[in-house]
């Protein structure tokens, strides 16, 4: 759906409404979604809190309660579950670290244990398994590299092999898939570009070809899709843009058109942003919409780091253990 000329009440970013929407979702424990999302709540908390930070409302939430809950979700193997009664997984281990980073409480975490867990997931071919059950995915490589960067232990894993595995997932269109041979997908591209940036290996990708494929994700609605001939969806505002931003090619898409699409996906009554206009809003799309706007320099928003997926101010406070977007010039020379 192409946004109308007049966006009406959606012409503004309704920050207070979005903040209230996130808080309400977190607190409404009689909602079916609250229970149905328990297994990935750690990521939900990360999306919600980062969105709140970007709109200047992080203080709306109970920091102590959240920090304690995160710590309770760490298991004996060193990894974190999606919530205390769920098994360890790399996905939630990263979300847990990101939440602790937002609160500048990373020092409360037993870094050695986390690092041992993360490193134990690396396979002989350089890839990473998501947990002890052997699912391999390029997302997990990014997660492992980012965990090590956040805990300032970049050499705890074999970064060169990790980067070589990512390169083996590169396709004819310059994009990346989940495993070697799998189709390019913008979500996967974000993780692969992020992984290569963290491993100082951006020379392993074809910058122009990949960024062209990414800018071809913009449809006539102004929104971005994740693969050719698929529908646009607000979450790709983060996945495509973060990669374009890391690679210094944000200007290859129409940023005004994308901004209007994201704004049009707002719910002006209940707050929140949805995948497509007039769909039900959720915390996931609210975060990715706001994060996309932040990358495009939307006025009034805190800026976000496209590699760390955390506010730039937070990343700057971390001792630079790996290249963040702010330390890597976006005008980096062509490869």
């Amino acid at each position, binding site marked *: 759906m192409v946004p109308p000329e007049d966006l009406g009440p959606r012409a503004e970013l309704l920050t207070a409404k979005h903040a209230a929407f996130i808080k309400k979702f977190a607190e409404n424990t009689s909602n079916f979604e609250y*229970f149905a999302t328990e297994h990935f709540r750690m990521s939900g908390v990360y999306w919600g809190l980062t969105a709140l930070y970007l709109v200047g409302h992080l203080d709306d939430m109970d920091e102590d309660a959240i920090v304690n809950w995160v710590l309770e979700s760490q298991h004996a193997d060193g990894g974190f*579950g999606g919530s205390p009664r769920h098994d360890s997984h790399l996905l939630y281990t990263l979300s847990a670290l990101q939440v602790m980073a937002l609160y500048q409480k990373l020092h409360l975490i037993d870094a050695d244990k986390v690092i041992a867990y993360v490193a134990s997931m690396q396979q002989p071919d350089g890839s990473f398994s998501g947990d002890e059950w052997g699912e391999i995915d390029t997302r997990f490589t990014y997660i492992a590299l980012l965990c090590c960067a956040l805990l300032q232990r970049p050499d705890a894993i074999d970064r060169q092999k990790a980067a070589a595995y990512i390169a083996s997932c590169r*396709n*004819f269109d310059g994009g990346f898939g989940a495993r070697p041979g799998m189709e390019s997908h913008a979500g996967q591209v974000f993780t692969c570009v992020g992984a290569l940036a963290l491993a100082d290996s951006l020379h392993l990708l074809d910058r*122009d070809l990949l960024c062209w494929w990414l800018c071809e994700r913009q449809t006539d609605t102004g929104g971005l899709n994740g693969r050719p*001939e698929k529908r646009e969806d607000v979450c790709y505002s983060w996945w495509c843009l973060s990669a374009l931003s890391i690679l210094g090619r944000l200007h290859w*898409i129409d940023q005004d058109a994308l901004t209007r699409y994201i704004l049009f996906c707002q719910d002006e009554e209940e707050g929140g942003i949805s995948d497509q206009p007039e769909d*039900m809003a959720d915390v*996931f799309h609210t975060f990715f919409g706001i994060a996309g706007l932040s990358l495009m320099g939307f006025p009034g928003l805190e800026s976000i780091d496209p590699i760390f997926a955390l506010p730039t101010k937070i990343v700057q406070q971390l001792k630079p253990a790996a290249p963040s977007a702010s330390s890597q010039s976006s005008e980096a020379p062509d490869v």
Partner: protein
Amino acid sequence: MHGRPRYPRPNTGDPQKLQAAEQRVQLYSRLTSTVLKRLQAGQYDKETLDLAARLLEQNPEVYTVWNHRKRALLATLSKGGDTAAEAVKAELALTQRALEKHPKSYATWHHRRWLVAQHVTSLQQEVDLVNRLLEADERNFHGWGYRQFLMELMQAAPEDEEAYAAAKIDHNFSNYSAWHLKTRLLKKVHHQSPTVTLDDLISAKSSAAAAAEERLVPFWALRQELELVTQAFYTDPGDQSPWLYHRWLLGCLLAHAQTGKNKEEIVSLLQQEVAVCKDILELEDTAAPDGKAASSIKWPSLTLAQLHELLCSVAPSSFDNEQTDVRLLYRQLQDIDQLRAGFYTDASKGSAKILVQSAT
């Protein structure tokens, strides 16, 4: 959450519906608590596993429950024989029920993969299942990934796989997943026999160069593929899937050019493609002389620019003047396809190369 309409707002008004919703929440949370508590205590009895299955059918992404089911199965599998085979069969049926309702569930696909890796099940049955799922949703990347996993286990012939991709494209040429698969297979299918000539032997050509030549897709196959994409262009010149594949085919031609051989053949193929693009542009112009559909002229125009760039690089002396055409085309594209004006600006300055540098 994807594709759920905002209106009508859920659970507003009707007290009966509100009550039903509350009940659903209570049942679900009680089921979850019971299942997790028992599983975490290592209680893998039939009743608990049945409850776990009920939970997964409602919400197949609850990975912790799949993990426990794997632990429970490992004990059964160690007994071997029919018991193991039956247990795996029942578990496959559970994942099938979950996938039919939730075909994009990462946790369920991985569980099924883990089951198949126990090597007590029929792979052909798996292929049939995934083929059916790919008929229902031809772009489901979980399905394509699973299919690739099966083909690797079965050591399927690249020719057969290529035939599957071709059939998918024949059914719908917009299927980018199938074009993608073709790019993975074409070189494997057309493993050129070594073409070491006497001249090569005399000039003691390096084995690396010879190996590179062997990896080229032969001209006759490229010609065949170019014909196939051309048919797709004429059907809908605005669909990007075949054009993206076409860019890759041009890269394959460029790889030939880099060997320094067959220059005439390469130039003639490129000129043939120039003619195709010009013809489509003319047809679109006749179809809608006043307001050309932007997407239908964007792709042939961009491809034309790329072809001119290629000709300049393959045969600089004959096509030097075409540089002007390239710049003109990119300027036109800035108007035709305004969303990507930034890219065309860089391309017109020669600082955004998506073809000439990408021969593979």
